[in-house]
């Protein structure tokens, strides 16, 4: 057991898998000798050899196509896409190939690949280093999409993703790499030091895909969030004074519908929080699921708090980023109906 930030926890997951499964290998832009632009693969090439962790050309489509071909031939590749914003050249490979291979071949071929990619804003990355594309993957039948919010979960979920026989998109909240972030700009940076979720075993362990975590128990409203927004939600709930239950979805596909349904049935109120823009976002699916399953338990309309429907703007980052204040107001609104 050691205190790890999320970078170290992910590095540890990769290290564990490289050591225990010769079928795993890592490749992507700058991941080899240099260890990645966020240092996530730091030291892995030196420790496990150049064939286990190596650099690729700037070719996201090529990276994913190569990974699928390797996966079909018995390997378990863990490609990195340097920023989730850059994943779109590989979209056809993910949608038309990785997600469909098992189904269309009736199980003759499959793609057990885990695509790691940092996502989300709050780092002054502008339009091209800040986006949250999870909804477009959630819509694709045949892909799993996983988003951790703590170092412990990041390691356990990543090991589960790597060991899963289906393709997994593993989105890493880059704003949480070095410490938790409650969405309030301008405070001194926090590290993971001192947080229980940063106590991470050095050895192999898993957090199963498709199981949400109840990050905070509460009686009067349910907040659904994942990734960076889990920490923003904690702050927003505190600010609101509402006794809200916070559910950290951890994976959006497969989705832990039972935990969501049980919580909203208990509280009767639901607020959904995500950083991606609102329209067509994953919050729409969550709202529909909650409405279909919990309508008669609802005491007020379901609220969605999300990024505005604009590209991610550089100078206006903190006007765009859905902070705890917006959640607190939404919680106050849903509490108006008693």
């Amino acid at each position: 057991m050691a205190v790890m930030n999320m970078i170290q926890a992910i590095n540890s997951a990769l290290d564990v898998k490289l050591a225990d499964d010769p079928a795993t290998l890592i490749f992507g832009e700058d991941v080899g000798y240099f260890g990645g632009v966020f240092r996530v693969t730091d030291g892995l090439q030196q420790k496990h050899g150049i064939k286990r962790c190596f650099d690729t050309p700037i070719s996201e489509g090529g990276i994913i196509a190569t990974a699928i071909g390797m996966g079909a031939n018995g390997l378990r590749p863990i490609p990195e896409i340097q920023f989730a914003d850059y994943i779109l050249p590989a979209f056809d490979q993910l949608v038309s190939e990785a997600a469909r291979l098992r189904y269309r071949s009736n199980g003759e071929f499959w793609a057990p690949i885990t695509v790691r990619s940092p996502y989300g804003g709050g780092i002054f990355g502008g339009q091209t280093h800040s986006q949250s594309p999870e909804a477009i993957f959630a819509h694709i039948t045949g892909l799993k999409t996983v988003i951790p919010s703590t170092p412990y979960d990041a390691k356990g979920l990543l090991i589960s993703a790597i060991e899963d026989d289906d393709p997994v998109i593993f989105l890493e909240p880059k704003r949480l790499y070095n410490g938790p972030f409650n969405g309030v700009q301008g405070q001194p940076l926090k590290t993971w030091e001192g947080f229980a979720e940063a106590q991470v075993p050095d050895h192999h362990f898993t957090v199963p895909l498709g199981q949400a975590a109840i990050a905070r128990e509460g009686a009067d409203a349910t907040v659904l969030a994942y990734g960076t927004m889990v920490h923003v939600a904690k702050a927003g709930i505190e600010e609101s004074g509402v006794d809200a239950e916070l559910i950290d979805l951890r994976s959006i596909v497969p989705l832990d519908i039972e935990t969501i349904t049980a919580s909203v049935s208990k509280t009767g109120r639901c607020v959904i929080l995500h950083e991606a823009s609102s329209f067509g976002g994953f919050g729409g699916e969550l709202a529909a699921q909650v409405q279909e399953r919990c309508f008669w338990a609802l005491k007020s309309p379901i609220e969605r708090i999300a990024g505005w429907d604009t590209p991610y703007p550089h100078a206006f980052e903190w006007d765009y980023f859905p902070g705890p204040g917006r959640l607190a107001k939404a919680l106050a609104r849903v509490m108006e109906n008693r």
Partner: protein
Amino acid sequence: MTARDAPGSPTDLHVPEPVARPGGHASFDHISFDEGAAIDRPSPEAPETGLRDYGYGLVRVLGGAGRAWDPGIDAEMLRRGLRAMARTRLFEDRMFRAHRQGKTSFFMKSTGEEAIGVAPSLMLGARDMCFPTYRMQGWLIARDYPLEMMINQIYSNEKDPLRGRQLPILYSARDYGFYSLSGNVGSRFGHAVGWAMASAYRGEDHVALGMIGEGTTAEGDFHEALTFAGIYRAPAILAINNNQWAISTFSGIATPAGTTFASKAIGYGIPGLRVDGNDFLAVWAAIEWAAQRARAGKGATLIEFLTYRAAGHSTSDDPTRYRPADEAGHWPLGDPVERLKAHLVELGEWSEQRHTQMVAELTDDLRSAQRAAEAVGTLGQSKPPVAEMFDGVFKEPDWRVIEQRRELGV
């Protein structure tokens, strides 16, 4: 400024057009190759830097004595190749008619291109993997994949090995070295490279054959695959089926006139071979050379097979709308079945009589395979259990498909 103002300007927009459209005079004079010239066969382990001219030549074996590329295969194997090509053609003609009779929704033929499916299938080994285009049914037929199963797939009936999930002819047959096909062209080209890299990673000597149409070489997939193949020295054979037509679009829209598809290899640092794709022996020889090179650890080869799509693109296509009806007759590289047959006759290893007898036997086999498949059912008469529609999305079903299957009541 409108487009009409442009003529006469040195920067006038150039949009290429084929030599002839319907009603015009078909010609392939623009496809240059020296009829008599013999091209030497370099060592498969030769450095790439010495191989840069081969993408502009044309590897041929049939019709010339003592050609360097003659793979020296025996008459028994040549007859097997002839039989598989003839069988492919008969099968496709029969299934095309089955479509016209309303027995299925869609079909595609490889008429005139059979050597490109059959020769690599017979040349490569059981553990090698082909990442085919949809014009390679000959690969399966050459390896004696049961015709009845192919027809069951085409009819999407209860015995369809792909359980009614795929359009006709988008087969998958792992045990026959045939990777899962898709209607998206080009997106498996890079899988061949990844598959080959995995083989090399384990120190195995199995090679991957990736196939792509000349039209699809314009996709990023093609260039990404060649980039990776070159950099990581993947034991892959990357081949272009240049059959002159991508639906209605002639090859001059995929690459500019005056160059070749094979020569694209040069910039990626791998050898490129331009090969007579209607010459069974040349196709065999080129695949054999590239496989030897790959197994020797020298990496990938790009091969352009020059051929002609004698049929329409698919059952939904009418090629007389965009090319002269007699264009096939002008194709300078002939027909692969006729050429191999003539070669065998010349060798004294085949005769018209034996050929006629073979066609009769193949037709009988086909008829019984079709009859067996139709006893199960044609499209719509029979299909796998509907509940299976929900299987195989993931290895284990999640609650969505479990609930939806219940909602559908199956």
